[in-house]
């Protein structure tokens, strides 16, 4: 009797554990409603996919920028304190102090729109209208010398805007360009002349908390 029950139990369990696999789909979760997808799917791509209807002028963007952005990014996009610099920097990428701004470095204008829409202003995300985002993007493009003062940015003309540094990006090529880092037998003995200290973090002196004095026993 007990043996029979055990066998029946096992059979039932086996049926339970194999059932979802037989069905193909697990069946958990539910279909997302179009309104739900629309609420979250706000991302924008370089080809303009995902842009909402709307438009905004450089002039309107300047006003919005001064109210919403300038306290961190500076009145002219020069960045306050350590906040990101948004304007300028053209021609600096090979220098000792490269300035990576929308105009000098970013490959696509869509990144500006997407980021402002999803995450700006810092601490008050999703508070700008789509027209506001178009206008602020237009103003930043204008400050970077990409569009003229009377430009009105819209869903329709967006993908025509090109940023100057787009062609300077290329896909990861470390496996080719750094092929020599793959070595069979790295040197183990007498690999180099005696090493000399050429730099010390202590001289830079930017580490939080001083090193405690140490006593060797």
């Amino acid at each position, binding site marked *: 009797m007990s043996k029979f029950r055990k066998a029946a139990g096992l059979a039932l369990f086996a049926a339970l554990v194999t059932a979802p696999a037989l069905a193909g789909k697990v069946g958990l979760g539910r279909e997302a409603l179009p309104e739900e997808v629309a609420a979250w799917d706000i991302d924008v791509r370089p080809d303009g996919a995902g842009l909402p209807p709307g438009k905004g002028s450089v002039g309107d963007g300047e006003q919005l920028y001064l109210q919403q952005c300038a306290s961190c990014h500076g009145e002219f996009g020069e960045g306050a304190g350590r906040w990101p610099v948004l304007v300028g920097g053209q021609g600096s990428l090979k220098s000792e102090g490269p300035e990576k701004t929308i105009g000098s470095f970013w490959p696509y204008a869509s990144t500006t729109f997407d980021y402002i829409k999803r995450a700006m202003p810092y*601490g008050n995300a999703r508070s700008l209208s789509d027209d506001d985002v178009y206008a602020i993007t237009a103003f930043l493009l204008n400050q970077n010398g990409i569009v003229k003062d009377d430009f009105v940015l819209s869903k329709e003309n967006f993908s025509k805007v090109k940023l100057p540094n787009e062609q300077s990006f290329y896909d990861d090529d470390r496996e080719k360009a750094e092929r020599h*880092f*793959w070595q069979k037998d790295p040197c183990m003995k007498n690999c180099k002349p005696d*090493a000399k200290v050429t*730099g010390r973090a202590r001289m830079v002196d*930017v580490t939080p908390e001083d090193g405690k004095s140490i006593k060797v026993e």
Partner: protein
Amino acid sequence: MDHDPQFQKSRRGFLGGLGATAAGLSLAQAGAARAQAKPDPAITEIQDWNRYLGDGVAANPYGKPSKFEKGVVRRDVEWLTASRESSVNFTPLHALDGIITPNGLCFERHHGGSPEIDPSKHRLMINGLVDKPLVFTMDDLKRFPGRVNKVFFLECAANGGMEWKGAQLNGCQFTHGMVHNVMYTGLPLKVLLDEAGVKTNGKWVMPEGADSSAMTRSIPIEKAMQDCLVVWGMNGEALRQEQGYPLRIVVPGWEGNMWVKWLRRLEVGDQPWHHREETSKYTDLLADGRSRRFTWIMDAKSVVTSPSPQAPLKHKGPNVLSGLAWSGRGTIRRVDVTIDGGKNWQTARIDGPVLPMSLTRFYVDFNWDGREMLIQSRAMDDTGYVQPTKDELRKVRGLNSIYHNNGIQTWLVRSNGETENVEIS
């Protein structure tokens, strides 16, 4: 012979194979086991903890480290960032051992602060190029078949970024502490994507966070299907808030920024999105002014965690050198250590689990006579990649990089045991 202490020392000694130096250091070993002149009061006096009752079981419903370990904490570098809500702190690697990072010590990197999310209001949506867009609750995910547990390191691409132009921060917590290693519990991303049904033109997956930065990255579908996870557990308990509670994505071996926390959405598309964190950030500006993008893999890297500036040598004689090695390309095959700045190397002893794309622990047991040392470690992975020196890396990448600094670290141990972050010839 085996009972001759001198023989044992020289046989086990770190410098055993390094010629003249070895003799000097192992001789210094003689007489290290000193006789105690006076009885030790720690033994002869009855201590309070030996006489009186300790805490009851209700004292700490969630246990904390001993108060004597209060210095073992994440720390930040205030001048690095404009605000602490978009900032980073660092794992105290110098004070940890083994391969698993305790949950409360895993470094944090937020772009819009660490949000407190009610899991009953958290949803995961899958949309885009799928047969059926889906919404899951946390309960749905925890009922889903196919749950797995896997250990992976997570390293911020900017780990060591402050050191590109030269030695800057004195402590492996600051130079290397944007890494942690955790056992995750969750589901392969593939099973969720299969449930939604990825269309044939679905080539990229974009995870998105629910926090105020709404973090997004583009992940190729091959990687998403191969080994990415959607997880709710870390080291046996729920994700910590600062690590993405209640849900995050795990992208093994690839830069930490892609491991989107507070994961609320996965979109499938036919092209990458080129969002902020994969264009203006997390791209590698090279000396010629051009930039590499999609540099996702974290190359092999290692660091000696002790001795290091925050963990100086305090005693001559026997000491344990310890460190960590890891590779985003696979499994650590070997770690070599030098004490003379890279002239001569010895292979370290690896202990503990050796797992792909996981931190791996190594040791060298050695005797120290108080001489100055230039200590480095060099990791090799099972693809044959050998961790380069900082100079070799700068030769290819220039000085304007921020990310992917996996160059060999040098610690100068001075004769008083103090240890410094240095650059060498």
